[in-house]
């Protein structure tokens, strides 16, 4: 360990904290929370915390997938539309007579299939994922609107099941935390995570070492689709109705933004799942805080844009001092 960590006192602790990759963005989150609480007593009320947690959960879960893809050098623009389609697939299976749990699993398998298609087109046919998933984005959007006739349906399922899946206050954020923890473990402690980093860091080198980089990429496309589909389903349970216009590009970009603000560069080869969660929290705090203050969505978008730019600039330039690893 460094001398800073050994040197006792606040200075040493602060220095150690700042070497931690996610530190600066956590600091921003804490400052924003203090600011919004000072501006409005209701910010930390339990009602609002619940709303806030729901803002955060969806983008945090999808961010886990997008971060894995960004690390191995890819992106999935269609995730928000898998989000919209999956609860419909569950609904149709359920309406056709399948019980709710198999219906849900069926929808997730279909989501995995979409990820497989994204992955195969990108890896085998060598179409850049930005273009592949732009194509599937439109395909899925048109498909969902067609099969749903453009109108929402009831989500279904027993109230007890709906509560577990997302309807009760903190169900969604609990799912999000659980998934983030598992994905953090997968990235930092498993072969899959290591090979994902290797594929993004040095594609040819990883292949020369014998890693099947195509399999890694396709697997991460499937993972992202399943996570996005699952998120669409728990959102449908929370709201109680399944809307063909839910999710879409806004939730996908929010998830990518959470990853990027949290410290995952678009260039691939490195990234952090915990940072993605923190990024999602900061974006949720910003949006919810401004909503409470009566600032509208247009302003939020401007602030979001600024936040992405500031995060990227500081990532690139501040990242040079003390790049310690969180692992």
């Amino acid at each position, binding site marked *: 360990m460094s001398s800073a960590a050994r040197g006792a006192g606040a200075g040493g602790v602060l220095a150690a904290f700042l070497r931690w990759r996610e530190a600066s963005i956590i600091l921003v989150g804490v400052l924003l929370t203090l600011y919004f609480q000072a501006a409005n007593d209701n910010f930390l009320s339990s009602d609002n915390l619940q709303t806030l947690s729901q803002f955060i959960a969806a983008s945090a879960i999808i961010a886990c997938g997008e971060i894995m893809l960004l690390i191995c050098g890819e992106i999935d623009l269609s995730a928000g539309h898998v989000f919209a389609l999956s609860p419909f697939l569950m609904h149709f299976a359920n309406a056709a007579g399948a019980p709710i749990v198999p219906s849900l699993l069926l929808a997730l398998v279909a989501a995995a299939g979409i990820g497989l298609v994204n992955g195969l087109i990108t890896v085998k046919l060598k179409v850049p994922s930005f273009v592949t998933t732009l194509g599937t984005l439109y395909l899925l959007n048109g498909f969902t609107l067609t099969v749903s006739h453009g109108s929402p349906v009831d989500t279904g399922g027993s109230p007890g099941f709906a509560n577990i899946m997302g309807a009760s206050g903190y169900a969604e954020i609990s799912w999000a935390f659980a998934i983030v923890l598992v994905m953090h473990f997968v990235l930092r*402690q498993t072969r899959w995570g290591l090979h994902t*980093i290797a594929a993004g860091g040095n594609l040819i080198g990883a292949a020369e*070492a014998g890693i099947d980089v195509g399999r890694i990429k396709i697997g991460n496309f499937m993972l992202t689709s399943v996570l996005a589909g699952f998120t669409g389903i728990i959102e449908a349970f929370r709201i109680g109705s399944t809307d063909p216009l839910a999710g879409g590009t806004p939730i996908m970009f929010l998830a990518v933004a959470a990853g990027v603000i949290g410290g995952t560069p678009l260039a691939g*080869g*490195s990234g952090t799942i915990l940072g993605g969660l923190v990024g999602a929290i900061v974006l949720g705090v910003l949006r919810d805080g401004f909503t409470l203050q009566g600032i509208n969505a247009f302003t939020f978008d401007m602030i979001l844009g600024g936040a992405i730019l500031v995060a990227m600039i500081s990532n690139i330039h501040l990242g040079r001092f003390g790049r310690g*690893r969180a692992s």
Partner: protein
Amino acid sequence: MTTLLRATDITRQFGSVTALDGVSLHLEPGEILGILGDNGAGKSTLMKILTGYQPPSSGQIWIDGAEVALRSVDHARSLGIECVYQDLALVNGLSVTHNLFLNREILRGFPPFMLDNPAMRRRAREILDDIGVNIPSVDLEVERLSGGQRQAIAVARAVGSAARILLLDEPLAAMGARESALIIDLIQRLKGRGDMAIIMIMHNYAQTLEIADRIMLMQHGTVTYEGRAAETSVSELMEIVRRGYRAARSA
């Protein structure tokens, strides 16, 4: 003793480019074969075929007297072939340890897919100490190492394995005198083990004649000279290279 590795009539086309045009070689146990040749002669391509990274367009490969079709890097590795590529194949953002164990990680027994980082770190330290490579910490990301240190890590990766056939594509490129000496010493110690055979691609003729037992010269995808190092001189090789160059120009 059976020939460890034999390749006959290997060809490789890249579209209209013929990178290899009927190359044959053999490698005996405990021997160092040095391959020399111009840029673009096909040396790295030959190497990549022998490691299973690329298939040949035609030709046969035998290991221990049995013909094999190398399906993948993993397949070649399971037959005891290990390689240090010219581009080193290191992943910059990963630590020295993770690079050393890339794609042959030590896993915990339970859960079965979990990395055993402490064990890999310990083993990495041992391997590096054993071969005398001076790296301050095995947790450093390799992008922070010098060119020579990176090269040493790439060699150590191959050496730390159970390889019997070691392929080195320009192992001394970008090395200072001290690091070169270190790698040469390492190669000679590996040779001393007796069970290992090494092919090394080199650019420095005099150095190669000193280290290798046998020399092959490649030009435009073919072998234009082969002989024992002790019976070969630099001037002789230079003459062949010059002749090839003049022939290419007048063609």
